[in-house]
């Protein structure tokens, strides 16, 4: 009885430390600025999405089922997905929309650097569930035509930003 209690306490402390560590990695990030930038181009981007029955990020509740321990890994992987594939595959002709997309990309780049430091400190461990969620997203992206997939992925940024805000709450939006 005492051993089980001691074990549970240890697990609890470790998970708290892990969560606190993850949150500590994104303390300085202002997600509100990114959300405002997306709201300004959301209508234009989503209006071009003709495949409304298909989703990339929210397939089968991918992001909804991510555990706190995998948040850091999943966040890092999705940031890499957007930076390496979505922003590169999207061809935007409207300069105003392109400026907003660039602003969002810069914010994602900063977040990647912060998470990379956490990973170097071995604070961002990637488990199996995190790897699976990342693979699903890539598979959904691969099923569509590149431009449509990129366009749809840009249109689902609001889902991704909401997921980051929920999983990394406690960080001041300064």
């Amino acid at each position, binding site marked *: 009885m005492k051993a089980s209690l001691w074990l549970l306490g240890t697990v609890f402390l470790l998970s708290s430390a892990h969560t606190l560590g993850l949150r500590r990695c994104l303390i300085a990030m202002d997600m509100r600025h990114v*959300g*405002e930038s997306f709201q300004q181009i959301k209508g234009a981007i989503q209006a071009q999405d003709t495949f409304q029955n298909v989703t990339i990020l929210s397939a*089968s509740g991918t992001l909804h089922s991510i555990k706190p321990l995998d948040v850091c890994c999943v966040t890092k992987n999705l940031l890499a997905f957007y930076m390496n594939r979505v922003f590169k595959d999207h061809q935007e002709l409207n300069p105003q929309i392109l400026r907003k997309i660039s602003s969002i990309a810069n914010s994602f780049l900063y977040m990647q650097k912060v998470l990379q430091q956490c990973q170097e400190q071995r604070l961002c461990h990637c488990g199996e569930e995190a790897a699976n969620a990342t693979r699903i997203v890539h598979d959904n992206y691969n099923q569509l035509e590149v431009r449509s997939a990129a366009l749809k992925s840009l249109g689902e940024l609001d889902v991704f930003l909401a997921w980051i805000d929920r999983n990394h709450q406690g960080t001041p939006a300064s």
Partner: protein
Amino acid sequence: MRDAGCRRRARSRRAWSCRWPRCSAWAAGSQGQCCPALHPCGSKQSFSTTSSTGRPSRIRRKAPAMKWSCGGTGAGGGLWRPVSSCSQTPVLSCDLTMVTLDLYDLKGYHARVQAVDRGRRSDWTVTQTRFSIDDVSLTVGSVELEIRDGFVLGKIQPPRPKAAPAGHTYERIFPQFHEYEVSIRKVPARHEFTNKKVNHENFSFPIPGEFGEFCVRVKPAVTSRTNKGVWSEEVCFLLAAKQYFTGTNLTISFALVLLLCGALALRLYLHRRQKLPAVLVFGKPHPFSPVGQLPRPETRDTLHAVDEQAFAKVSPELRNSELHGSTDSGFGSAKPSLQTEEPQFLLPDALPQAGGTLRKGDPPDPESSCSSASTDSGICLQEPRWVPQAGGQEHGGQEDSGIGLAHHSEGRTEDELCGSGGGHVGPLEPEAAEGEDPAAVGFQGYLKQTRGTEEQAVTAGCLEEEASSADASVPQLRMCPDAQEAWPPPAVDKGYLKQDPPEATLAPLGALAGQWNPAAEEWSLLGVTSCGDLGTAEWSFARDPAPLGVAAPGGLLGSFDADLVTLPLISSLHASE
């Protein structure tokens, strides 16, 4: 596919105009849009009425039924779900709250609408954008106000929708960074009275310093999100004047008023008490009053023995008079009526041949001789009655308690006469006395007693003596009526001065006339040579001329102070035999 209500214009196939059955006007719209905008899923969004085939459908004049359905990209996998509550009757808007309760679980929804007319259906019109948690408008459930201790306490209740699933609360969906904008408005003004932001559901602000009705409304916000807030309904409260007039405030105010009235009353009382009674109100000081002047401390009068025999006939009353009370040169009087400040006196008329220095029987003239305000010993000195002569001059009006002797004879000028005032003495030429009856000359000298020599003061009242000579020019010493009966015949006053030889200088009359010259303060009577011999042997009195013990020059005569300011009042003049 066009929405129901849209029709193509007759002239152009691409120009479409939309008319809804309930709209009052036609509105031109480009292909693919109709107006007014529909409101699918609780949010205002413009609808693109482009059909799936891209071809416009024919327009029916009859209003069709609208069929609504919503499809989400969340857990539903993108499937559209029909909204049965909005599909029965033709409506232009539909509430999709109940079908989108999992919106906060990272879901995003589209809405679409289709017009149905019996068997015919239009194309679906889908919202252009997906509405998510970012599109949710934040509201508050209620605002409660309470006025306490000069503050308005407010409490904001988060929204509690009945349809919300378990666990879906405002605080769980938005756990942090709550912010509320509080606006206060004074009725009936529409502009905001004050506006502030608070970070908690409980807030407070001081009571506005005005009376009237105030309304408060609140708009929520989450600082980490871009969600818009909706103003709550106004909650008003009334600030009446009576709220400020509490029992405590009234008690304190009443006490302050009482204290103020008491202080004012006390001040008035003290102010009235400072007023002296009329009895103690002193009269206006005289411009010059040699009698009442302050004693000079630098001179100390020496006391000389006086022959008491000379004062034997003096009335005991006068002998024991309160001479010390006088501020003059020595004469004091307990009877103010006998005192005078006028330099007038009547010499006793003991020897008619003496020149009538004293005149008896003359009624007292209080106005010219005695003054009720005089504080001297009571010797009433009367102005000599000058016979108009060339060079003669009256000395009336001179305020001098001294003795002004004037030899009234023809040809005498003012300089030859002993004037009064300030202690000056009119000179008397010894030559004038030679040709006349010595007794008729009368009192030619000038006598002044020293201050403090109270024993020299002999009178307490006015003396009146008949001048032995009918010559009106001789100053006459007369007695006040009330003291006449008790007043014994004046005895020879040994204290009277004998004049010095002529070589003594005199003080300028001009300087002494009307004012006291300090230079003549130490002027000694002995220096008055022109007044002639003031020896008592030349004086004659009507009554018993008691021998006057004339003191040696160093005695009484020598003690006479040259201070002409404090001229003595002769209480009695006694002719020496």
